[in-house]
């Protein structure tokens, strides 16, 4: 049953060095505050997983928390590159980053398989692309009914999945709505689950398109108002597009990046996890 904890407590309890940590949220509901807490607690050697790594992953990578990235599309949406991600891949800064890349459909089906208790997921894809030879977690499988050859992707079962949602209740039940991406599957595929929420309310009210995650599949719920910024939380905040544009300038230069992180994330502390 989920514990209601502070974000610092929850990250300390649930995220260990070397863990495979999925932080999902598809443009909407990105768990940025939780990512910042991981950075502040100097977690290292993490395998970080996300369909669409964006600013908070650029920060996790640039601050040296990640040794491996599993992903589908790593960019600053509508703006351009993730400069810390590129610096890690192109120049090995702050240290080399192992990458495992998939198509979105492939990585999505890895979560689906993990959530379903299956060893692999199946899809039409990958054949004819260079992704196939680059990624150990993609093979081919023959359909026992039709004989058709299909792509098989290994189940993904993160040690921890972290998502952001609108509301939790005192029992740790969680309600999210709007674009929910692959959040439900990432949660159900994981060993441990942390959900940050905009607020804890007495009672969750059903709503159209709402996805309810029962408290008994969650380990910790932490209140983190505005915890998706500069991403957004439908019903609570709007996406700050200008911050995504600003990030391009901040992240281009290593020193500018580190100074920004020190001021905005580390709270002036120098305990940078690198």
């Amino acid at each position, binding site marked *: 049953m989920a514990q209601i904890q502070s974000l610092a407590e929850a990250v300390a309890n649930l995220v260990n060095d070397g863990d495979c940590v999925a932080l999902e949220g598809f443009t909407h509901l990105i768990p940025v505050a939780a990512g910042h807490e991981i950075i502040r607690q100097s977690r290292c050697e993490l395998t970080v997983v996300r369909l669409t790594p964006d600013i908070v992953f650029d920060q996790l990578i640039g601050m040296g928390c990640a040794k491996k990235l599993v992903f589908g*599309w790593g960019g600053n949406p509508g703006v351009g590159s993730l400069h810390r991600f590129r610096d890690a891949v192109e120049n090995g800064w702050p240290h080399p980053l192992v990458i495992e890349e998939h*198509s979105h459909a492939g990585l999505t089906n890895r979560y689906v398989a993990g959530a379903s208790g299956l060893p692999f997921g199946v899809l*039409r894809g990958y054949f004819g692309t260079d992704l196939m030879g680059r990624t150990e977690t993609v093979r081919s499988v023959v359909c026992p009914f039709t004989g058709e050859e299909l792509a098989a992707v290994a189940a993904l079962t993160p040690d921890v999945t972290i998502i952001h949602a609108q509301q939790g209740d005192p029992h740790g039940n969680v309600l999210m709505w*709007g674009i929910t991406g692959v959040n439900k599957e990432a949660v159900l595929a994981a060993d441990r689950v942390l959900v940050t929420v905009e607020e804890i309310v007495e009672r969750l009210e059903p709503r159209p398109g709402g996805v309810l995650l029962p408290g008994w599949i969650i380990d910790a719920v932490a209140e983190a108002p505005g915890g998706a910024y500069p991403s957004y939380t439908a019903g609570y905040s709007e996406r700050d597009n200008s911050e995504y544009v600003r990030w391009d300038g901040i992240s281009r230069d290593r020193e500018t990046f580190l100074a920004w992180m020190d001021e905005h994330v580390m709270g002036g502390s120098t305990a940078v996890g690198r």
Partner: protein
Amino acid sequence: MTTTSTARGERSVDYTPDDMMIAAAARALRGYRVCFVGIGLPSTAANLARTTHSPDLVLVYESGTIGAKPSRLPLSIGDGELAETADAVVSVPEIFNYWVQGGRIDVGFLGAAQIDRFANLNSTVIGDYEHPTVRLPGAGGAPEIAASCREVIVLVRQNRRTFVEQLDFRTTVGYGEGPEDRRRFGLRGAGPTLVITDLGLLRPDPATRELTMSALHPGVELDQARDATPWDLRVAADLTTIDPPSEEELSRLRALQATQGQG
């Protein structure tokens, strides 16, 4: 931004090569019912089509928004505006497994950093994979969009950096090495049926599937297209020149662009 003006025609309406690409892409959507949209030129083009000739065009974004009717151009595929105006918002597994792979999308838009003569696309790396010169964002939804949408329209600039003899990485299959490969790879859609560049339009040869210049934008000479292409560019016997953006297209486009990334 370079501004060119129409080479022919009495009225001199100013427009950019991007405007021409967007107008051509919007026109190409006429007659389609369901369009899978990415951010950038495709989203602008799809919304231009929706606000001009195809008001009922169903826009599907990868974030799970089906039937989005944005009043402002989104900066990302998951902008709240898309969810708020959509007929339905579904999960990402659903979008890929039921809607794309399920064969329910008529046409998908793709861009790329590199394209080859068989419309295979690279959006992964420039240079060696292990030690790339440029690490690009990666595959995203492109491979399955190209695999399973009934048709694909590619939007790329035509120059020797983008048009290449050999891709540095094949992220997405167009026609592989020729007419048999899509079937061999189990790809059920028809593949890229139109490539729109800043110089004109290319279509796959019906027999060989090699991209063939089928039309030029106004004011573009065939030699420019040849110079921009590192292989011996095939040219359609009935090469045409397309119409420049109309005043209506441009005014609607400007109105859309004025909303870009707002809110």
